[in-house]
């Protein structure tokens, strides 16, 4: 155990936890941001996707030791109360979510994709989103929403 400093959505947090604790646990249980979800625990479903220095990561499999000194962004950090992120807007316009559980992870992967590819091709969308599983099967709308956000 020890004092670990984390930067999450632009705020600094000091938490008392073991360095081997997965980042997802710290963010959900210690920081209290529950938008990122546990799905599989082995980086295979994408429900826990956050950004670390802008890169999408599976926070269920990233220990706190690796997150120290990095800028972490979660679903709670990409839009504001008054203005949603363009990807969130597009998600609503295309009516992507069904049960909603995987969607914060989907959105975080899409946001990261659009940072590196402003107008992604179908192939680039599939490649970027392949690690995010949606059991409701909303993939067709995810593609449409990413294209909508890219245009917007």
């Amino acid at each position, binding site marked *: 155990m020890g004092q670990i400093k984390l930067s999450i959505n632009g705020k600094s947090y000091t938490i008392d936890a073991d360095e081997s604790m997965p980042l997802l646990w710290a963010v959900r249980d210690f920081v209290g941001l529950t938008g990122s*979800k546990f799905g599989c625990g082995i980086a295979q479903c994408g*429900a826990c996707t956050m950004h670390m220095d802008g890169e999408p990561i599976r926070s269920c499999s990233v220990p706190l030791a690796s997150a120290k000194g990095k800028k972490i962004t979660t679903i709670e950090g990409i839009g504001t109360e008054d203005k949603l992120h363009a990807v969130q807007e597009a998600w609503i316009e295309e*009516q992507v*979510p069904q*049960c*909603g559980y995987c969607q914060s992870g989907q959105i975080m992967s899409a946001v990261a994709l659009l940072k590196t590819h402003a107008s992604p091709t179908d192939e680039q969308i599939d490649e970027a989103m392949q690690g995010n*599983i949606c059991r409701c099967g909303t*993939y*067709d709308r995810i593609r449409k929403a990413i294209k909508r956000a890219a245009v917007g």
Partner: protein
Amino acid sequence: MIKNITKGKVDTSRNIDSHNHVTGRSIYVDDLPELQGTLYLAVFGSPVAHGHLRSVDLSAAEKLPGVFRIFTAKDIPGANQIGGIIPDEPLLADKEVHFHEMPIALVAAESEAIAMEAAKLITAEIDPLPVIIDPREAFAKGHISGSPRTFQLGDSNKAFAECAHIFEGKADSGGQEHLYIETQGAYAIPMENGSLRIASSTQGPTAVQRTIAGVLGIPMHKIEVDVTRLGGGFGGKEDQASAWGAMVALVAHLTNKPAKFVLHRMDDMRMTGKRNPYSSDYKIGLDKDYKIIAYEATFYQNSGAAADLSPAILERTLFHLNNSYYIPNVLATAYSCRTNLPPNTAFRGFGGPQGMFVIESAIHQAANTLGIDPIVIQEANLLKDGDVFPYGQIAKEAEAISCWEESKERFDLKKIREEVANFNANNEALKKGLALMPICFGISFTNTMMNNARALVHVYSDGSIGVSTGAVEMGQGVNTKMLQVAAHYFAVAPERIKIESTNTTRVANTSPTAASSTADLNGKALAHACTQILDRLKEVAASSLDTSADKITLKNETVYVDDIASDLQWEQLILSAFQQRVNLSAKGHYSTPTIHFDKTTEKGHPFAYHVYGTAIFVSTVDCIRGTYTFDAVKIVHDFGASMNRMIDLGQTEGGLVQGIGWMTMEEVIYDETGRLRSDALSTYKIPDIYAVPKEIDVHFLKTDGSDMALFKSKAVGEPPLLYGVGAYFSVINAVRAFNPNWMPEFYDAPITPEKVLMGLYAI
């Protein structure tokens, strides 16, 4: 119904949860704030699939710091029983274990990590017994749950004698892991007088309540089950959420501390049942015009180690044995075969898809042996009004032919056929396959008793409205539909209405959210509640405006007299009613009329109505690798008069993808010892973004809809999954384009790339 509402920000043409879903604010069980002193649970599951349980050694686990207490069967104060239909399933194994990972002991500890570590320290002494995983083997050894069921129409024996063509074969379909991304979970909080409040991720709040009451040996009124929403259910949380609810309740009841259990993914996969695998035999007879004259089938359902919902699932297999075809002579028997797998359970379609796969296999075999396209046989036998189903119901408002014909015309089937043929003539390494999949699905719980629902509506003195029903929101958009109902009847802005959590103290004795019929049942109950309040409000308005109640209508939050707007607005109306001591609350009830079914004759009218549709599948098989993609799936679907097109379309797209997964890539593998080998997302493959069709085109069939449906908008949850069966046959057809001499030895879904390769290069 909603376009009259001009005020406000809530747009009920969209899912009302959208904003919370995209901002991460939606609350699931694991997101609830935790109380101090909460205990966390872990299960010690059986290391073998079948055996006599001699003893359990908890000593090492009990010594682990942070372990509060460990529970076994002997700690259960009530009945050690969670079976929903047949009481054959203990919560914690007592004398015998029946499947691998069957819960034996329950650890409560101060953290989840400690609980899981402690569970690993528990050992059990078990004398192994023979393990059966195959339903035909179970049948041969007489391991059957309940009674076999037989549906009969006409005289198939006599009819076969008159058939020009007869074919026999075997068709197997595999299991399917639900893989709701939110795993099973529950959180219990002890209240005063021995009561408990339980947050559960369940499709069946009443089932959880009833199960807990039985396990604790206390009345149901002491158990309050509350459900905000589910991160997916798909049938997996209809009956199988009860065990975890009962475990947290047991611990909270015995320790007087809050107890929480959210399953780890691999535990969830190993401990919970899946879609029932089936192995079936069929015999089909056609006349010279390819009319199906006779059909016989024997279905061997793999129920797993307990009945769970399998008897009801078995029934629906029989109800859908003819898919959307009229067959005058039918004889079909179904057996629920008990094996040593975790108890299999409901999964979107509930046995219907398994039955439909068999008739489609029979048609495919018949057509390919006769050298014709299966489409010819499918088309020659579609149901029309007046045809009788094998269970005696007469087809009414049948849309099988209209969906089929419209799909052919709208999507230009002739052109698709030519394109596929041209492509195949000009390509060696890639081959395309075409298949059509007509569907027909009966709407209602097949257990007539369950087709009823209740709603509770409060209009508060400020004009805001709270709506409770028995419907559980699990992604299907039922809360949005409930809000549409209330907004329609009260003619108020949707943001005045709050859809409350599903709670057993507000709406009791609920049927589970299942059978696609939740919006119909609960929506109609809600309409009943709303109209009672509305009638009272009309009296208040009439007296205030010096007219009679029959002249009053409400539109856009305004009272109208003889269709002329008055000055009386919603908030004033409610305040007047409140001041005049008018009851502003009502409970509504609905039970589906006309339906009935007699299990002794296996005849009746079990369904309120049927849903129809036709899908056209085009797949491309990579003949080097055995992989495949779906170029396009084009669907004409019978939504009735859809009350929410975006939600209904989403259900169709999602159901289709799930059906494709079941039929193609999702392979549940148990080894001969009954151990699940596909127990993680790395070994069990469900559709990802690569797996979905490149093009999904869904057309809404133009119909008036059914009066039996909510706002004439037909149920939409399960039917689209059935289209997935077409994916299987389109891949088979593509393989046959490469290797025309190959026919499957028997029909065996899922058609994984391994099986494709075997077909491509079979000699």
